[in-house]
Structure formats: C-alpha cells, structure tokens
C-alpha cells in the first residue's frame, strides 16, 4: 500500500514537472542594456586617440619638429 502511494506521488510529481514553465536563464541574458554596449564601444574607439592626446610627454616625443617659416609679409595685414 505504502509503495503504491509512493509510486503514485512519483508519477504526479513527474507529470507536474513536465507542465512546469521553461527555465528562465534567457531572461537574465537579455538584462544587459544596449546603451551600455554602445558606451563601451565609443570609449574603446576613443581609447587610442585619447591615450595619446592626453599624454603630454608622448606628444612631445612624437611631435614633428616645426619648421620655422621665415615671415616675409610686412605691414598690417
């Protein structure tokens, strides 16, 4: 009798579990907002440009020597 009751419970549990909704890991995946991705992308795009252009010493090291142009114009322009 007891074993019959256990079997019945197992069957019921099995049937109920079959009707349960699908697991929700996909909802967690979609929580990442699009804006965050865009900001990350922009910052990484600016990275190489800014990395150099905020670095005074690097700008000094890589600057082309300026050719001093002789001023040939005379008088008020």
């Amino acid at each position, binding site marked *: 009798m007891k074993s019959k009751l256990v079997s019945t419970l197992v069957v019921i549990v099995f049937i109920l579990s079959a009707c349960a909704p699908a697991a929700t890991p996909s909802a967690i995946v979609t929580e990442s907002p699009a804006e965050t991705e865009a900001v990350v992308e922009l910052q990484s795009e600016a990275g190489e440009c800014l990395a150099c*252009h905020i670095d005074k010493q690097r700008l000094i090291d890589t600057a082309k020597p300026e050719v001093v142009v002789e001023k040939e114009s*005379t008088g008020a*322009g």
Partner: protein
Amino acid sequence: MAPLEPWQKVLVNRDDFLADPHGELACTMCHGGDTTSNNKETAHSGMIADPSALPQRVCDSCHYETAMTGSGLHSTLAGYWTTLEERGASQPEHDAARIENLLATYNKHCGSCHTNCQDCHYFPPNSEEGTVLVKEDVVDEKLSRVDHLAEIEAMRAAPDQEAMHTMFGNHCSTCHASCGDCHISQPNNVGGGFVQGHVIMKTPSMTQNCTACHGSRVGSEYLGKHEEIPGDAHFRLERMNCIDCHTGAEMHSPGSVCTQCHTEDEGIEKTQEAHRYAGEQTPSCESCHPEMGAWNDTNQNHLLHKDTLACQVCHSVSYTSCDGCHVEISDKTGNPFYETEGDYLSFFIGKNPDSNYHRPYEYVVLRHVPASADAYSFYGQNLLPTFDLKPTWVYSTPHNIQKETPQNKTCNACHGNADIFLTVDKVKPEEVQANQDVIIDQIPAQVEEPTTSQ
C-alpha cells in the same frame, strides 16, 4: 600672442572634453583616421584635422539651428569678392580642376559610345549596292554631345579669372574661418592649436579667436594698444567682449537679424551675404542706446545730427589706415606673402559712399584700405580694370568709441576744422578719381557756440 608649442596645440583636456557632449562621440566620427592603431603615422592615415571646414558634413548635422552651413561671411569671404568685382575682377564659375573633372567624366561616361560606322549609318537590305542611310536621330543625339563639350569648355575660366582665382586661393582665402577656428582652435594664421584642450567653446575667446584675426585694426583699437589713444569705452569701462555686441545669430546666419521681425514671405533678403556693411547695422549703437536721438534725448547734439552723422564721427578717435598692398609668391621660400606700403593713424570725416535706409548718414568716418590698382600684378596685368569705381577711403566703424573726443569738445572743434575732413589735398593724386564720392568739397562752416554746454 605667443605661439603654442607643437604638443600644446593638440593636447586634449581629458576631463573637460569628456564632460562635454562632444566627448561622448568617437573621435573618428568627426576626424576619421585609424582608431585601432597606436602608431602616429597609421593612426593619422586619412585623418581630417579640421572636419568643421565642411560644416554641412559634421557640425550642421546636429547644429542645424545655427544654420551656419557656410553662409556666413567668415566662411564665404564674400566680402572680398564683392569688393574685387566692383573693381572689375571676376571669379570663374568653376576652377580648372573642376573643368578637367567634368571633361573626364564626360569622356568616360558619355563620349565613349561612338564605336563603329553602324552607330550612325545603316545599310538597308535588298537595296542598291552602296546605299548608306543615316540614322538622323542618333546623329542629332551625338551632335548634342558635342554641344555639351562646348558648354564645358565655355565654363573654363578666362586667363584673368584664373589669375584672380589663384591669387585669392594663395592669399585671401587664408582668412577663411571654419566652425573650429572660432569654437575649438586658434585660427591657422596665428599658428593654430586648441584654445581649451579641444573643449568646444560656445563662446569664442576674444583674444585667441576674434582678435587673432581682427587684430591689426579692430583689436588694437578696441584694446587700446596704440600709444596715447585710449581703448574703446565699452572695453575700458565695461570690459565688454566682442560677442556682447556681435551675437552668435549675427555670426551664424546673415539674415537672422531681419528675420527676427520680418518673415521670408515679405521678401526680406539675407543682409550680410555680400559684405559686412550690407543691410541692417548689426549691431547698431541704438541697439543698446535706444535713447540716442529719440524724442526724449536731452543731448541737443544728438537731436541736431541724428541721421546726418554716423555715431563714429563724433565718438571715435584716430584709427589705423593702410596704403598699397601687394601680394606675391616668394622666390626664396615659395610661400605667399604681402607687403603694405605703410600703416598710420588718421581720423578723417568724409561723405557716406553708400547712403541707404540703414545708413542714411551724410557724413561718416573713412579708413584707407590697403588697396592699389596693381596689387595683384604678380598674377597678371590690369586685373582690377575698374579700380576707380570704388573708393580707397572706405566707410568704417572704428572700434575705439569714446564719450568725449577732440572733435566733439565744442561745435567748432569740428565745424570749420579742415584737419579732420577728407579734402582732395589729403588724397593721393592717383586715387582722386576713385574717391570722388567721398571727398569733401567744402567743409562745414564754423557756427556760433552755444552759451551753455549740453
């Protein structure tokens, strides 16, 4: 203004720039280049140093409300061409490179269809041997192509036009100002370089932007850099900046002042498209001093002289004039340069060369501009064939306004004072003809001084 070191010119202020909305954009959105490289040469490959030189490509895509779109005089330099054309020069409809491009396009896409006899002729079957007919419609069409070639050739600049175009590109166009020349960097003609670490400044710097270009006359006068001549009262007493009078609306859209009150349906044309003194005064003195000359003005001199004298006649002092400018390309360096024969301080009242609704004055102050008939002789002969049709002493608005001036101390400090009127003896003989419209024939006679001063 001391020139910036090379690194200073391109050093970005990271915190301030990233706090600006423009800092949210990828650098390459405006400048192009290769953002993936940390090597200077490859990173700068294809880079556009001043993307605002074509505002419709970058700036106007967001700032459509300012409608700069290259229509302001800072961008078009139309004032130069207006003057040059009044002196007989003309600009080509298209430059030489454009013509060659048109011809190449025509030859590649249009003119290469004529491949064999059958294009225009056909030989009807079952007809007498040697019968050749002409496809009239095809021939007409091909002849029309020839006309297209003629049309393109007709666009080619005349030698004088080409010479002026070259001169303009070498010399005058260096004054062209992009959005960035006012809002990001110093202008190129003073060496360039960021003003505030690439922060896009809503308000340009007076000294690093405005007077960096407008320095030798306006800047020196306004800031009082001429010995013994005070700076403009608006600067000395109120510390007013250029933009306190010259608003963004004036700078960005030449027609905006008129359209504040009028609609385009009324046929109001943009005011400053031809030159800066066209259309309404922007600003006029009355913009801030509306009581001047009004019914309740207690100054009798204002009431007496309103509409007869420009404000500057009584309220400006000596200002810079220049003589004969010549432009050339240096044999030594290959760079363009100019020479002016001289600059000097003077103050002369003359006739208004262009009296109109907005500037009805009979008398104005005149400044000699560095113009000469042979200014461009390096590029060709007689490039200004009607030089004498426009004065060399021109309508001027010196920026050294004073409440009290030598000529407004008493009535007869001006009336009868030959020293301050542009009479024929003060004009170079070769320029008398050009200045007929502004030379004073008879100076105002002395008057009886009032017994009480106003």
